[in-house]
């Protein structure tokens, strides 16, 4: 596992830190420094609230080596409430079948381990269904 690479991504993985374009106001995640909407520099940080909705989803059954022990797992395309989309695993689904527009929220979970190379564990964002109680409030 490449330690410095994952350490570099800690603010994105743990806190959904992206960017906001100072020129057109677009919110960006993942951060990309050049605004894809207006083409100007966008390096101002913006921390996303962490709520969004499911756009598409799949149950992955044939996994790459690093994820083999987790298969099957559910991967989704999620639209954050501030606009941008990201790809993340769904967790804590229980018997719930995902559906388009399903409200979800970010949680921090184990993404994978380095499979006993050095005993390191990689943590990051996954998304779970927003609890009904939370929706009612």
């Amino acid at each position, binding site marked *: 596992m490449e330690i410095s690479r994952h350490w570099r991504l800690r603010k994105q993985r743990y806190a959904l830190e992206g960017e906001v374009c100072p020129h057109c106001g677009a919110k960006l995640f993942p951060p990309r420094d050049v605004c894809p909407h207006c083409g100007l520099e966008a390096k101002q940080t913006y921390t996303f609230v962490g709520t969004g909705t499911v756009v598409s989803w799949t149950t992955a059954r*044939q996994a790459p080596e690093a994820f083999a022990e987790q298969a099957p797992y559910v991967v989704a395309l999620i639209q954050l409430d501030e606009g941008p989309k990201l790809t993340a695993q769904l967790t804590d689904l229980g018997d719930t079948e995902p559906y388009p527009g399903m409200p979800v929220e970010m949680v921090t979970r184990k993404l994978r381990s380095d499979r006993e190379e050095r005993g390191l564990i990689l943590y990051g964002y996954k998304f779970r269904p927003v609890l009904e109680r939370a929706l009612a409030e």
Partner: protein
Amino acid sequence: MSEIVIAGIGMTPVGEHWATSLRELALEAIEKALHEVEGLRPQAVFVANMHAPVLSRQANVGPLVADFAGFRGVEAATVEAGGASGGMALRAAYLAVASGEVDAALAVGVEKATDRVGAGVESAAATVLDADYEAEQGVTPAVQAALIMQHYMQETGAPREAFAAFPLLAHQNAVGNPYAMYRKAVKESVYHRVTMVSDPLNLFDAAPLADGAAAVLVARRDALPPQTAQPLVKIAGFGVANDTLAWHDRDDLLDFAAVRRSVEAACRRAGCTPAEVDFFELYDAFSVYVPLILEAAGFAPRGEGWKMGQTDALTLDGSLPILTMGGLKARGNPGGATGLYQVAEAVLQLRGQAGDNQIPRARRGLVQSLSGPASLAVTTVLEAV
């Protein structure tokens, strides 16, 4: 400027070549291509490859292959652009010749997928994605295609069964291709019984990564010997366009915009419209790509590409034959070599050498390879001379 033509092609059978190495596969295709035109040696060699650095621990594939094939003193480099590597190697060869820097250039694609098996191959395949934001979530190209397929069904109302048409057509056409990996037609009932890879995408919705090599020799027409044994095929137009690498970064999730842009550019250069091509070798890495490509290329209205699979339009005697030699699904998908197999197969059609799969009076073909879900689209218009 003299016309730029394809003077020779060579292919190995696609499959599991346990006894043959990366360099030997490439050499077999190169020798066949050079043998087609006596007395023409390329001054530049562009080698398309996707996975050798991971699967075979071999980078520097371009110089390796050029050396092994006996070239000395020529320009040699690897071209890597994901699934569009083969298309981009042809592009490099074309530009080298078009610029006047060389008279002839060789585009070679080679992939050695079977040096590893199982989850190791899935890991290698996932390296074409955004490593930080897709692959680290457990995404592979098949998982990404499943997300696209689910969304396509949801937005267009396409029934799950509709996707069977494309792999079934590929298998039907591969029966007549001696280089194809699976030369066997498949029944629809079999399609619906196979293993799920990533719901709703099953084993038949994904083209198999395999071993293979293909070579295409590009030359200025006036640099050729006066007599050539094979009918010539002209590169009439080229168009290349990119899009976001990660699918989640698309504003419009169901628009393969790079497909549209590259088809328009290639046809503009060739002085034709997409409607004036006799066949379309498209990039069916996943069954859901086919309707999205047909829509973006202008052959079907948005959201209705799947309906073309329900008609006879795409068969060998239809109005727009596709996957004429089996496509990625049934010929097999030898990664970096795939784009050059597509070109070589189109050349066979335009020479009238496609055997049982020959499209009558084929004069102009559209050939397109993609990297990922049209993150890069490379389109060529080829014409019989």
